[in-house]
């Protein structure tokens, strides 16, 4: 008797194996609670769910950059550019930029499929932005614009992983896109000697800088070590640099891996590097391999045009002298300074809790406090067949409406427990979060203290 095709047991094993905690179980619970709150206000000791599980700033009240949205709106509806009133509603440099962008689009058609790597004129702009950032030339042909970084990561995993004998070195803790996409594409996540001793061919190294969930910014020496290591071992560097603009400490700066490698004198013969931003960039491949990447990209035709335009704006923001420059800088600095403040406040709050230690968030958008949980809590988790940090996160949600991701979703040294919490709730909500967190933690410890 034939089993019907889409039964779970017939599913690809890789799908079953892959996990993505950032939108996993705890989030599904939170969504249910949110619905409960809507239909039954007052049913819980809190009036709203605070999603601190995901780096999704605008869902928590952060405002978009005005200049970017002006340009996007004009490109979405170019008929506006022919109207007199437009000059009253939009800044003049936004209007100029929209014209410039439309001029690099064939037929000024913003609704057409573009070149599969992204519109050439926009890639030129992005290359110029990268060159300005790093001080080394960048080539539009090495750039692939994608619907977010995830498709680019998937593409790389598809290219690299031939079987489960292929491994990718990942930091622990890591952002679970990597573990999930490795599982999905049938590979293995590994540490180097361990891997090789088990007959695994290690193909690439993932490095997330600034780190997610850990928030550390790599020192240049560290980066040079990594480049040399990968060169020696023949590994591709997969450099996730999506948080490059989020740095909160004065003693650290962002240096792209491309800049580091170039400044060490390395070129395309020496090392293969893929850098992911909200734009994705494939550097220093042979023409043959780039052809294969292009081919895969072409099956999906192209990435969404608004996103491509936005990427070109992010890499080429208003300059001094432009009408929007001051407001752009105000908005940007306002957000970054506020993030730095929130990072500090929440870090201090976590460190003030009994049994909790929290490293400084040098960058990115997260705190990853370590929970030294009492024995009783660990036993209770075992009995409930859940990880201790998942138990803590669940209790936190039930008591306060705050949603965090258990550290087990990111990987951690065995026997240690963490949660990942974003620093994104608006500043005026932070005091309430801190007090609810403290209250909850005290009650939790009172219940489970040894």
């Amino acid at each position, binding site marked *: 008797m034939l089993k019907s*095709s889409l039964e779970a047991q017939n599913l*690809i094993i890789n799908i079953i194996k892959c996990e993505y905690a950032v*939108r996993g179980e705890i989030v599904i619970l939170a969504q249910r609670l949110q619905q409960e709150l809507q239909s039954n206000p007052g049913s819980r000791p809190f009036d709203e769910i605070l999603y601190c599980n995901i780096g*999704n700033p*605008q869902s928590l009240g952060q405002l978009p950059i005005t200049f970017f949205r002006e340009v996007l*709106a004009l490109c979405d*509806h170019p008929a506006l550019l022919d109207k007199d009133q437009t000059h009253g*509603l939009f800044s003049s440099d936004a209007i100029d930029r929209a014209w410039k962008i439309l001029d690099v689009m064939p037929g000024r058609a913003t609704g057409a499929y573009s070149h599969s790597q992204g519109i050439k004129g926009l890639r030129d702009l992005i290359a110029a932005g990268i060159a300005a950032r790093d001080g080394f030339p960048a080539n539009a042909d090495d750039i692939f614009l994608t619907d977010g970084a995830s498709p680019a990561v998937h593409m790389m995993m598809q290219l690299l992983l031939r079987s489960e004998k292929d491994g990718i070195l990942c930091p622990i803790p890591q952002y679970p896109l990597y573990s999930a996409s490795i599982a999905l594409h049938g590979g293995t996540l590994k540490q180097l000697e361990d891997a090789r001793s088990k007959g695994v061919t290690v193909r690439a190294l993932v490095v997330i800088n600034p780190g997610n969930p850990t928030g550390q910014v790599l020192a240049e020496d560290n980066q040079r070590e990594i480049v040399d290591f990968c060169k020696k071992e023949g590994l591709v560097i997969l450099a996730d640099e999506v948080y490059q603009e989020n740095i909160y400490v004065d003693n650290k700066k962002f240096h792209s891996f491309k800049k580091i490698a170039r400044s060490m004198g390395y070129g395309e013969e020496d090392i293969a590097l893929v850098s992911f931003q909200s734009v994705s960039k494939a550097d220093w491949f042979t023409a043959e391999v780039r052809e294969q990447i292009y081919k895969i990209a072409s*099956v999906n*035709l192209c990435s969404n045009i608004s996103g491509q335009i936005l990427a070109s704006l992010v890499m080429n923001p208003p300059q001094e002298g432009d009408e929007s420059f001051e407001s752009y800088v105000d908005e940007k600095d306002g957000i970054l300074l506020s993030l730095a403040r929130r990072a500090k406040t929440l870090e201090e709050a976590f460190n003030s809790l009994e049994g909790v230690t929290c490293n400084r968030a040098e960058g990115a958008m997260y705190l990853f406090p370590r929970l030294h949980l009492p024995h009783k809590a660990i036993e209770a988790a075992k009995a409930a067949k859940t990880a201790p940090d998942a138990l803590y996160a669940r209790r936190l949600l039930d008591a306060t409406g705050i949603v965090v991701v258990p550290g087990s979703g990111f990987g951690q040294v065995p026997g240690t427990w963490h949660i990942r919490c974003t620093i994104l709730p608006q500043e005026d909500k932070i005091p309430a979060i801190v007090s609810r967190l403290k209250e909850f933690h005290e009650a939790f410890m009172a219940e489970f203290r040894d």
Partner: protein
Amino acid sequence: MSRGLDYEVINENVKRVAYAVRGELYLRASELQKEGKKIIFTNVGNPHALGQKPLTFPRQVVALCQAPFLLDDPHVGMMFPSDAIERARHYLSLTSGGLGAYSDSRGLPGIRKEVAEFIERRDGYPSDPELIYLTDGASKGVMQMLNTIIRNDKDGILVPVPQYPLYSAAISLFGGSLVPYHLEETANWGLDINNLRQSLNEARMNGITVRAMVIINPGNPTGQCLSEANIREILKFCYQQKLVLLADEVYQQNIYQDERPFISSRKILLGMGPPFSKEVQLVSFHTVSKGYWGECGQRGGYFEMTNIPLKTVDEIYKVASISLSPNVPGQIFLGLMVNPPKPGDISYSKFVTESKAILDSLRKRAHIMTNGFNSCRNVVCNFTEGAMYSFPQIKLPPKAIEAAKKAGKVPDVFYCLKLLEATGISTVPGSGFGQKEGVFHLRTTILPAEEDMPAIMDSFKKFNDEFMEQYDDKKGYSRM
């Protein structure tokens, strides 16, 4: 020691992938364009690239959503009609933070609800928003489904020949087996259930577990619209053989004849009643890229699941969540497509005028092209009943096939390259879609502007008839 991304050590499945739509012909055309030659790109169903204008209403709404500060401006009513303003507010209220926030990984619930309502109006049966997932274009959804189904190279997918090469590419990428079933060119590209059975049985004899069947309705590249009876046969077949049906219905708005209007596979399935309606697993795909919208660059699409077990749906959700969410502007375009201006709305009459003009013109162009091809020597072309393409059969004389071999090219690639070099018309050779052995085609779109069509067809005819003159055996070919 090989370095990580050296060609020799990358995934073989990637190397096996072929996607002719942006393959050799397109790359050559792009080269020629760089050299200054005027190229008419008819290789992709990309209406706006060939001058089709976007519909006004959706662009107004999305612009307002991109820049919500406009909604607060007292002058906004002078720039935008009030229904666009209202609709922008409506969509913004459905988001949690505007266009810049990740949405639910399945797409904004409010828009999925609009899609469900559209499906219910279209088919007369209720649809569940929980089983509708929005994706960055329909292709992403197709790839996700195939990735979910294919476990190894023993898993086979029944795919029509000719087919849109997304299917063959995805099957290669995921390491599965493509099981072809031939469409009947002499019967207007009709689907013969016996061909289907034969293909299935052959595959099974070769140790392949056939898991799913793809239909593209209206067809790409063939344009045929399946009859209700045909779809019913297919559904019965899937029921008997326990196949999941993947119904690519992205061209459902593009219908150029009245004998076979579009009827969704889901409608027919539910109309069949139990056991079929409760048992046959079906996934239906739609998009904002085609129809009369042509908003290819927005990357907006959805798939709807029918009779898929919840445990499987959970896994599909999980994989979708890794990519966090489909792009929000694309979702809004989709919402607008399934929920366009209604009679009485300020923008209604303009919307209808714009839409009708596009569809009427497409119907005309379908005829112009078909007739144009049929007037050429050694060319036979079925009428484009739907979709956006013309797929004429080019009866290449033996001498031409020889010349192709000498040049190291597949015969239809050879022909298409010569066509490109002579006329600037960039097509896709039929070998990119699959065809019977020794039978050659090319695919072109019907999208060039109506006023340009006569010149394009003249240009083609001139090239073709000269080509045939050069390579023909002087024995003459019969039309059929």
